[in-house]
C-alpha cells in the first residue's frame, strides 16, 4: 500500500497490540481464506480489491495498519 519497501511488524508487537483500536489489522487473502482462519479483529481486504476498496476500508491514511497474508513471501 506504500510505494517504498514495507516495514515489518513482529509477531510479539502484533500480539501485544491485538486489541489496540489504534492498530488496524488487514488480511489481504481472498475472502474464503479470511473466513477459514484469521488473526482476531482482522478486516478482509483481498489484494484483488485493494485499489477499489482501500479508501473505504482504510479511510485514514495516517492510521497504523498491519497487513498480512498466508505465510512469508
Amino acid at each position: 500500500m506504500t510505494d517504498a519497501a514495507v516495514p515489518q511488524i513482529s509477531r510479539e508487537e502484533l500480539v501485544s497490540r491485538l486489541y489496540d483500536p489504534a492498530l488496524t489489522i488487514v488480511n489481504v487473502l481472498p475472502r474464503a481464506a479470511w473466513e477459514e482462519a484469521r488473526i482476531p479483529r482482522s478486516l478482509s481486504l483481498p489484494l484483488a480489491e485493494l485499489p477499489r476498496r482501500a479508501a473505504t476500508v482504510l479511510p485514514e491514511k495516517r492510521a497504523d495498519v498491519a497487513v498480512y497474508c498466508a505465510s512469508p513471501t
Partner: protein
Amino acid sequence: MGYVRVRDFDGGIAEWTGAGLPVEKGDAPAPAAVPSAAGSRAPEAPLPSRGVAPLLSAWLAINLALGLVYWLISYLPGHGLREQGLPLGHGAAELLEAVYFSFVTGLSIGFGDIVPVGLVRVLAVLQGAACLLIFGVIISKLVSRRQDELIAEIHRIAFEDRLGRVRTNLHLVVKEIQEIAELCRDGSAPSSAVVTRIESAAAIFAGELRAVHDLLYRPQTAPGEDVLESILAHLDGGLREFGSLLACIAPDRRDSAALATNLRTIAGLAEEICGDCVPREHAPDLKLWMDRIQGRARGLGVARV
C-alpha cells in the same frame, strides 16, 4: 496509495497459527464487547489478561525461599541473623523467625528486631530491591487495568451517544426533506429558498450517512444488529425521500457547488453499502436493507465521488 504507517506481518496466518495464537473463523468476527442496555455494542475490545496473581505468587515465593536460605546460612559461622545481638538457633521456631525477617525485608519495613550479618546482608539488600520492583509492577498493572476499564467505559458511552444522535438526525432530516418536498410540490416557496433548504438537508444527511458507513466498515465498532437495522431503515427512508425530492428541482439547480458535492458524497457512500461489500457478515434482514440502500443510491442518478 498514500498510506504512511503500514507494516507487514511477514509470517502471515501460518506463523500466527503455528505459534498457537487464537484465530477467528467463519464469516463474522467474534463478538468483542459487552452488550449495553441499549442493545448496541460499544467499540471496546476485551482487555488482555493482566493478572497480578503470578507476580504476587512470585513475591511470596521469593520471601519464603529467602527465609529458608537465611535460616540455612545461620549454620555458617559469622553469617546469618541475630536477635538482640545473639545468633539465631537452628530450630523450627528460628526458621519461622527467619521467614518473618524475610517478609519484613521484602516489605521494606525493617523493624530492626532481627538484623542480618555477613552474607545475609547482601542477600537482604538484593531481596529488598527485587521485592520493591515487583510491588511497583503490581501497582502499575492494577492502575493500568483500571485506566483501561475507564477508557473503555468512556468510549462505550460516547459510542451509544453517537448512535442515538445518528438516529435522531436521520429522523429530523427525513422530516425536513418531506417538508421541503411539500413546498416543492405546491410551488409556494421560491425555488432558490427550496434549493437552499435542500443543500442544508443534504449536508446533514451526508454527514450522518458517513457515520453509518464508518459503522459498517469498522467491524470493531459495529453496533448490535437491532440498532443497526433501525439505523439502516432510517437511512433507506431518507434516501427514498431524497430521491423523490430531487425530482422536484430543475437539473440546473442541482449544479450548485454545495448540493452537487453533497449529492456525490451521498451517492458514493450509499453505493458502498450492500450486503456483500461491507467487510462483516450480517443477518439476511440487514443485508436486505443494505442492498436496498445501494439500489436507492444508484437510483439517485448521481455520479460517484
